[in-house]
């Protein structure tokens, strides 16, 4: 889930959002039931969602039935943007991955139990893979009865081919973990893809049902990596290369009937999908009709009105528009069809460690930062929970640890910050804050300016163009001290939530180590954590790294992002997918 793209899109959306219609003006109150007007009072600490690795028994189909669900009908989906990619190998963004659940299967996948706990299970494979040498060699066995939409069986050769084609030059936007683990960072020069007739030796197929993947180094969470839609399966016989992005060949419960770019996508049942092979998907509706070009404000109004076809409508990505948050939360009628949950994204205000080297100054920044004010400007409690750690609570191994008392003083502590600055003899330090030049971010910048100036910093705001924001802050020699950025784990282990952002060896122009932290202690701790085979022990190691990062005050974690969304009253089984931060299509049925 490339957080940068989704968040950027969100920023542009907010920039362009305006509201129509009118109402009489009365006072507003906080609608979280407390009755008091304590804006942003800290809630109970965030509860970590538990994720575990399932057994072969867990990997057996069919999926657990949704109580009260029945088959049939057409479900509508409205969203702002068309899916930018449908070719599995090109898919990194969360909403592309979410729709792909309906027609693309991977070796592994996530199954959500009724109590909200999630398990990694085998999807095409009979289990979550076995490794005998600590994560260097992974063996997967395919289930019996898994078929393509034309009825031909899915074989291990298809799996091998799917991995090989991620090397192809036209695959530009998918994940690159497996490729670079097999062939190194410059993997495209090591292997050109399957179209020239060459094969990738690291993936072996001893028989039709068995796949063996070998890495030079141990990667103990490779079975999580293979659950990414980016490693979804593609048939060699029906691979149309670049064209495959428009209309992929289905291995899941639905197949695409029509896809009009930027307008609509229609799906119907795939008769050759066997529910007995699938522990993840409940395919209740007969058809799906997805329409694009609906802004968040529009979709909020439509869901609130709940008229006609909108009754049977949900939205993967569109959330409740900021100005309607209070109204939606206060409306008892909307409550049964409101979804709220924690997304995998954590918002940071990155401190540029190559410019601010004094740890005391960084601690002062962390102490002074006005979390409550900035959150209030962006939607309050619905925007997110105050973050203290770098790992999201949705990640395996998350532990709550509040090194700077942020939960006690989310509005910032200018006195404590000033004391730290005085101690470091750095009162009046200039902080160049780069921000996305949108109306909301201008206001957020005002709140930050106010807080930092109170703490004794000199504040210099630098507006950046929304389109080039990430390019500008991604420069290693950028001239900014503080800038916002979000990060979401690609799969829920500490590796993807910490390594890409805090590994000092990953510093490069445009790379995701925006804070430019290069701490030998952290680097070696990351190396050690990767090698731990037991997922729970590994999670503990990542949590320890997270604590170290906090103690060093390398950046300012701001919020664990939340999502607040609505759906139509005619649908049941609409659930929130915490791994993607979207509405999940898996259990939806028409009432």
């Amino acid at each position, binding site marked *: 889930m490339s957080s940068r793209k989704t968040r950027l899109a969100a920023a542009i959306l907010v920039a362009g959002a305006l*509201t129509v219609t009118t109402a009489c003006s009365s006072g*507003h109150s*906080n*609608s979280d039931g407390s009755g008091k*007007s304590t804006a942003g009072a800290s809630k109970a600490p965030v509860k970590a969602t538990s994720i575990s690795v399932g057994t072969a028994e867990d990997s057996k189909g069919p999926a657990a039935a949704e109580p009260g669900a029945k088959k049939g009908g057409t479900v509508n989906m409205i969203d702002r943007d068309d899916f930018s990619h449908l070719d599995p190998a090109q898919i990194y963004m969360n909403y592309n991955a979410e729709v792909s659940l309906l027609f693309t299967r991977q070796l592994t996948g996530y199954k959500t139990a009724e109590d909200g706990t999630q398990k990694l299970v085998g999807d095409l494979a009979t289990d979550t893979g076995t490794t005998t040498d600590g994560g260097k060699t992974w063996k997967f066995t395919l289930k019996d009865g898994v078929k393509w939409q034309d009825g031909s069986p899915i074989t291990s050769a298809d799996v091998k081919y799917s991995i090989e084609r991620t090397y192809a030059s036209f695959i530009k936007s998918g994940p690159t973990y497996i490729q670079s683990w097999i062939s190194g960072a410059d993997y495209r020069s090591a292997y050109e893809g399957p179209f020239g007739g060459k094969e990738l030796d690291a993936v072996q197929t001893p028989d039709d049902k068995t796949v063996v993947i070998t890495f030079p180094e141990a990667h103990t969470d490779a079975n999580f990596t293979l659950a990414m839609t980016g490693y979804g399966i593609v048939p060699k016989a029906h691979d149309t290369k670049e064209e495959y992005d428009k209309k992929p060949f289905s291995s899941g419960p639905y197949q695409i009937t029509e896809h009009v770019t930027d307008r609509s996508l229609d799906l119907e049942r795939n008769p050759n999908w066997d529910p007995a092979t699938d522990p993840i998907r409940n395919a209740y509706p007969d058809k799906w009709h997805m329409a694009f070009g609906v802004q968040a404000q529009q979709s909020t109004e439509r869901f609130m009105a709940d008229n006609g076809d909108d009754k049977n409508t949900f939205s993967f990505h569109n959330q409740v528009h900021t*100005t309607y948050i209070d109204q939606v939360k206060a409306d008892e009628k909307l409550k049964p069809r409101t979804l709220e949950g924690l997304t995998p994204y954590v918002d940071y205000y990155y401190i540029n460690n190559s410019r601010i080297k004094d740890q005391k100054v960084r601690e002062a920044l962390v102490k002074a930062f006005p979390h409550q004010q900035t959150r209030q400007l962006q939607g309050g409690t619905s925007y997110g929970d105050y973050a203290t750690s770098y790992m999201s609570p949705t990640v395996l191994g998350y532990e709550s640890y509040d090194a700077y008392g942020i939960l006690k003083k989310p509005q910032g502590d200018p006195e404590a910050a000033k004391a730290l600055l005085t101690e470091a003899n750095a009162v009046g330090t200039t902080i160049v804050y780069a921000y996305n030049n949108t109306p909301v971010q201008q206001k957020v910048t005002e709140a930050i300016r106010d807080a930092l100036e109170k703490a004794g910093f000199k504040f210099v705001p630098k*507006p950046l163009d929304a389109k080039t924001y990430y390019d500008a802050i991604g420069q290693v020699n950028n001239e900014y001290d503080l800038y916002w950025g979000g990060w979401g784990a690609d799969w829920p282990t500490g590796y993807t939530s910490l390594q890409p952002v805090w590994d000092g060896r990953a510093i490069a122009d445009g790379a995701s180590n925006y804070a430019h932290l290069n701490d030998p202690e952290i680097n070696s701790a990351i190396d050690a954590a990767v090698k731990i085979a037991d997922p729970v022990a590994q999670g503990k190691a990542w949590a320890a790294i997270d604590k170290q990062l906090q103690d060093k005050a390398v950046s300012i974690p701001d919020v664990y992002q939340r999502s607040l969304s609505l759906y139509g009253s005619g649908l049941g089984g609409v659930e929130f997918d915490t791994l993607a931060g979207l509405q999940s299509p898996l259990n939806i049925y028409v009432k």
Partner: protein
Amino acid sequence: MTTPTGATTDGNTSRPGSTSDLADNATTDAPGDPGFRGLSPGQLMWRRFLRDRTGVVSACVVLLFVAVAVFAPLIAMLYGKNPEAHYGQEDVSLLTDSGLPTGPNGGMSGDFWFGLEPGLGRDVMMLLIYGIRTSLIIAVATSLLTTVIGVALGIAAGYLGGKTDYFIGRVIDVLMSFPSQIFLIATMPVVTSLLVNSDEKNPDWLPFVSVTLVLSLLGWMGLARILRGVSLSLREREFIEAAKVTGASPARIIFKEILPNLWTPILVQSTLALPAFVTAEAGLSYLGVGVSEPTPDWGRMIADASGFLRTDVTFLLFPGLAMVLFVLAFNLLGDSVRDAFDPKTNR
């Protein structure tokens, strides 16, 4: 405002067709006093203006706005608030968790007369009052700049004629064919980056200067065209001929003979242009390319408020009303000024 033609030595004769005009008006202006004579055109204009009730009322409104802008710091002191403090964030009881005012009518109260801004919780009345400053400074500066450019180029084109006229005329044609709104949006960032290096802090004067420059660039052509036409016809008249014969330099002819006759269109045009610049500036800020935070600005306030139309309509009401009142008063004043100067023109 100086009396326009009073400055000239031969104000009466230099006014085209003024003899009869003056005689007419002098008698109608003061019918009860047949012996009264010798009013200057400026005094006449002032009398006509005072008789126009709409004009006087709008002039008062305009003066009120100007006074509020000038005395903004004094008002802030008496009122006890300032436009920069985030009251709603300092006192958590004023705003809800998602930033809407807790009080009814956008948080209007004895402390915050016009309510609170959702989000940052600044005082709406202070934002409005300081916003007048922003609007007025930019609009007045732009009016002055465009008037100077328009007068210089218009008279030059009209009086000099020939190639100068042709050249200036084509420049005007080209500039007038620009789609102005799009051009303004496109040039704003360019002008800003020309004025300040990307690694420096944007100084507070920057948005003022760049908005003024950009608006002036496309704002002077109308006036220049009118002045060109008038001076073209004046050029051929006897008093100019006479001045030429007596050996007056072109500079003297332009400044002492032609310019005094142009004060009417200049004043009328610039009083009408001022409210147009106020709206243009607000338009730019509304679109997000004008004056940025933390400088208070009406256009940006309206843009922000439009997002709260359904949840906090009070926040839109005040800047909206203020804007309408301000622009309306200025436009009516412009009309009245024109009527007073030029009673013969039909609208």
